């Protein structure tokens, strides 16, 4: 293994000091002296025609500076289906759909004005579950979309029906996962500010500031150079701040243009719980053919995704989850039927794992049910069918590196799988599950690219400014990218300033999403750094009259290989290069498009989880005793950061498994929109977590890296329900696994 100075070392985060002192500024902190506050009028009805909107009373309220409706926002948008509008004039399709927006001198006045807007509705029949929405005669939510099926992504390889007919066993089971909130600590928030040169500055808490610029340039028919999007420190995102645009963003931009003053909008915590795009509800039926030797002969998934009022990410997520499931095992016959279905609930979006957690849950939970039924060790069953490096999946994906089997073996060994299963303790149980996730994404429904860009500028003193549009959402990307640049340039990390989040100074980026930043963003940084390194070595070679091939960069110096007594500091090289006749800056850019053409991703990260659970037979309460996680992340650039991702992923995954669920009342309105009744796990709920990093040195990621942020979560609920079964003898097919469900299932079994 190569020897690295920074890559592979657990280093403190580059932004930790300003975060522990409270100095880090987030978009929520932005304020201007003459700033106005905005509020949206949201629909109280789940499905209704709008007959009339009267804003006159609101406009007359002292302190109100402007009121807008759909007439002022004539834009349509969406992720794959252009079915959304910022403010609705004709129809609303879920409780919370936006209708009008107000800008006023303060938040209270804006809210008061919103309540003065009068809307006459004609209420329409509404539908709140995808299976109901697909029934004949169900309310039509979007004209022309009969049956409410907006998209039907599918995959087919081989002949599953034939495989089922020839299998020793065939099993069919249905699972359901509920809508879940991201619960970003920093809610969705933005400030729009126009100046008199006609330029728009837009502050937004976002995973994709460059895409926000592209979007608004298109909407407003403006040159991209006249729009500056700034993203400060981001207080968590988890997928919700990617390709989706939000009504508050349009409203702030239009109201600021109208009033000539900065306008801030910020989701209240209640809005954030329901209207910041949810993890979609999924209803998944899995049919599996399997032989006595444990070989899966064929598998058919029918995955129904509840989009809500608009497709949003529903079509792409339903597609990608099917593609990825096909990568997990050596499926000889594989069929996936996805249905992206409209209903009258608040729409979903990208949520950590992009549909993969629900579809994996169904597949992995069923595999454990099958193992129990046919008397095979679930670990062996997985090892028998696991994908290996070099495989091309049933869904056409080339797997260049794969540590799946190793992850499974590692978690089993660490948790004591064999011993504990041989000598089970009463009311205790072990569960295991595994998974695969992409590193970057390329889908037929999206632009055919998977790129990142980076720019390196070497300063006169030999320090470096690195600009990127990979946003540090808290996951630690700035630290990892700084490590990569430091490694290539031989410059100390504290001499590198890694800057992101300003479209005026930073290059473009295809998003801090899809677990792509370390591997793909990191590769752009690596290649730009290599280019800058070569420029430094060439200039030093000229000055020292030595062949650049005989020089190397180390400890902020250019050294002669084998004769370190001859050297120049990088500062001396930079100054020599800049101030000589026909001088040049040492500056490099890189555009890196990950090699995933014809594939869904350039690299796949694999992982496994083993969970030990205790169930109280009197109450049905579950207590997680331990979680062991192994992740094939290619290479850990910052191992401590990678483990932090795993720990956070397990926390969110256990929440999905046991407590988290967005609930609506019978009219489709918010039922739980605060921390007291949307239960995120607390420090007291969390078990010890043992992360294990498996390195497979991927051939296309930066320094062999693959993604980890999403894979860290995937498989947690799957292993959890299996552990509950091992402890209590019942299978819970509908998440979350509440004590009530466990108790009822135990009673029903008796």
């Amino acid at each position, binding site marked *: 293994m190569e020897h690295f100075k920074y890559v592979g070392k657990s280093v403190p985060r580059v932004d930790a000091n300003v975060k522990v002192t409270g100095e880090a500024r987030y978009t929520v902190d932005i304020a201007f002296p003459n700033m106005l506050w905005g509020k949206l009028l949201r629909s109280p009805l789940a499905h209704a025609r709008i007959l009339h909107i009267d804003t006159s009373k609101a406009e007359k309220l002292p302190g109100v500076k402007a009121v807008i409706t759909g007439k002022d926002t004539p834009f349509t948008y969406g992720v794959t289906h252009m079915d959304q509008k910022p403010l609705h004039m004709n129809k609303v399709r879920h409780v919370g759909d936006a209708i009008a927006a107000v800008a006023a001198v303060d938040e209270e006045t804006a809210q008061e004005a919103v309540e003065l807007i009068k809307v006459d509705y004609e209420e329409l029949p509404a539908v709140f579950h995808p299976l109901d929405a697909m029934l004949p005669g169900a309310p039509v939510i979007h004209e022309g979309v009969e049956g409410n099926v907006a998209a039907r992504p599918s995959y087919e390889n081989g002949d599953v029906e034939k495989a089922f007919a020839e299998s020793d066993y065939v099993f069919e089971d249905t699972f359901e996962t509920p809508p879940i909130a991201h619960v970003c600590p920093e809610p969705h928030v933005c400030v729009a500010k126009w100046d008199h040169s006609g330029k728009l500055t837009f502050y937004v808490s976002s995973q994709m500031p460059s895409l926000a610029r592209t979007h608004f340039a298109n909407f407003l028919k403006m040159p991209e150079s006249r729009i500056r999007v700034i993203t400060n420190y981001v207080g968590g995102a988890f997928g919700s701040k990617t390709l989706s645009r939000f009504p508050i963003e349009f409203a702030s931009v239009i109201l600021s243009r109208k009033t000539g003053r900065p306008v801030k909008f910020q989701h209240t915590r209640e809005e954030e719980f329901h209207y910041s795009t949810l993890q979609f509800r999924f209803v998944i039926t899995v049919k599996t053919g399997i032989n006595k030797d444990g070989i899966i002969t064929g598998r058919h998934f029918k995955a129904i995704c509840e989009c809500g009022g608009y497709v949003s990410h529903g079509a792409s997520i339903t597609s990608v989850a099917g593609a990825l499931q096909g990568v997990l095992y050596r499926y000889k016959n594989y069929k996936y039927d996805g249905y992206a279905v409209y209903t009258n609930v608040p729409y979903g979006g990208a949520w950590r794992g992009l549909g993969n957690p629900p579809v994996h849950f169904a597949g992995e939970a069923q595999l454990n049910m099958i193992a129990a039924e046919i008397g095979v060790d679930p670990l062996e069953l997985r090892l028998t069918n696991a994908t290996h490096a070099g495989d091309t999946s049933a869904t056409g994906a080339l797997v260049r590196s794969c540590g799946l089997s190793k992850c499974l073996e590692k978690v089993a060994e660490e948790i004591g799988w064999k011993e504990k299963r041989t000598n089970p303790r009463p009311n205790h149980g072990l569960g295991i599950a595994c998974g695969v996730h992409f590193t970057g994404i390329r889908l037929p429904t999206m632009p055919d690219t998977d790129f990142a860009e980076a720019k390196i500028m070497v300063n006169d003193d030999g320090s470096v400014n690195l600009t990127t549009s990979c946003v540090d959402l808290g996951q*630690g990307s700035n630290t990892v990218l700084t490590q990569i640049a430091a490694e290539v340039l031989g410059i100390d990390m504290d001499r590198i300033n890694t800057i992101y989040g300003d479209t005026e100074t930073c290059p473009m980026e295809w998003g801090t999403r899809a677990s792509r930043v370390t591997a793909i963003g990191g590769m752009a940084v690596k290649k730009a750094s290599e280019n800058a390194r070569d420029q430094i070595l060439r200039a030093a070679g000229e000055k020292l009259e030595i062949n650049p091939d005989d020089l190397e960069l180390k400890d902020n110096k250019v050294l002669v290989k084998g004769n370190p007594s001859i050297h120049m500091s990088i500062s001396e090289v930079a100054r020599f290069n800049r101030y000589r006749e026909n001088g040049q800056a040492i500056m490099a850019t890189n555009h890196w498009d990950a090699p995933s053409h014809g594939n869904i991703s350039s690299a796949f990260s694999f992982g496994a989880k083993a969970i030990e659970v205790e169930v109280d037979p009197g109450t049905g309460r579950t207590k997680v005793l331990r979680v062991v996680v192994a992740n094939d992340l290619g290479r850990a650039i910052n191992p401590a950061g990678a483990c932090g991702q795993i720990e*956070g992923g397990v926390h969110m995954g256990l929440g999905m498994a046991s407590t988290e669920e967005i609930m609506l009342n019978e009219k489709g309105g918010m039922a739980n929109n605060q921390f007291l009744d949307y239960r*995120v796990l607390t*420090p*007291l709920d969390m078990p010890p977590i043992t992360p294990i990093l498996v390195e497979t040195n991927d051939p296309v990621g930066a320094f062999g890296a693959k993604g980890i942020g999403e894979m860290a979560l995937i498989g947690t609920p799957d292993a959890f329900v299996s552990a509950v079964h091992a402890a209590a003898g019942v299978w819970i097919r509908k998440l979350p696994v509440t004590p009530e469900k466990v108790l009822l299932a135990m009673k029903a079994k008796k």
Partner: protein
Amino acid sequence: MKKTITLKVNGETFNLDVEDRRTLAEVIREDLHLLGTHMICEKGECGACTVIMDGLAINSCLVLAADANGKEIETIEGLAQGFELHPIQKNFVEKGAVQCGMCTSGMIMTAKAFLQKKPHPDEEEVRHAIAGNFCRCTGYVRIVDAVLSSASELKES
């Protein structure tokens, strides 16, 4: 109605005229511009806005500024001595207890008040102490670690 109050914040005295309905958190952020005190839920459910008032860790969004009249308040900005971080801050940095950072100030202030009362806690006691502080990023693993390491360090000094 406006009330005139005196707050001693991080050792500095402020005389302020505040509307009696405003919370201490709002006054800290909006009037004193101490933006290191974060707000996530604004109703006492998440602990992000925790400050220390007369030695007690409190949710500053649940205290009316008027009721804090005459009290001594400590916010995250008061911890570091010049550029020297407080031992709890140092441990949060070194243990990797920070991700997005929105809960960090509240966690550190909670930990500080807790360790003043309970200098030798075990892990279970640390978990109870921070149970009212929501974090979405870390799974609390490294936060608990950082508080425990701070305890042993503060004990030594």
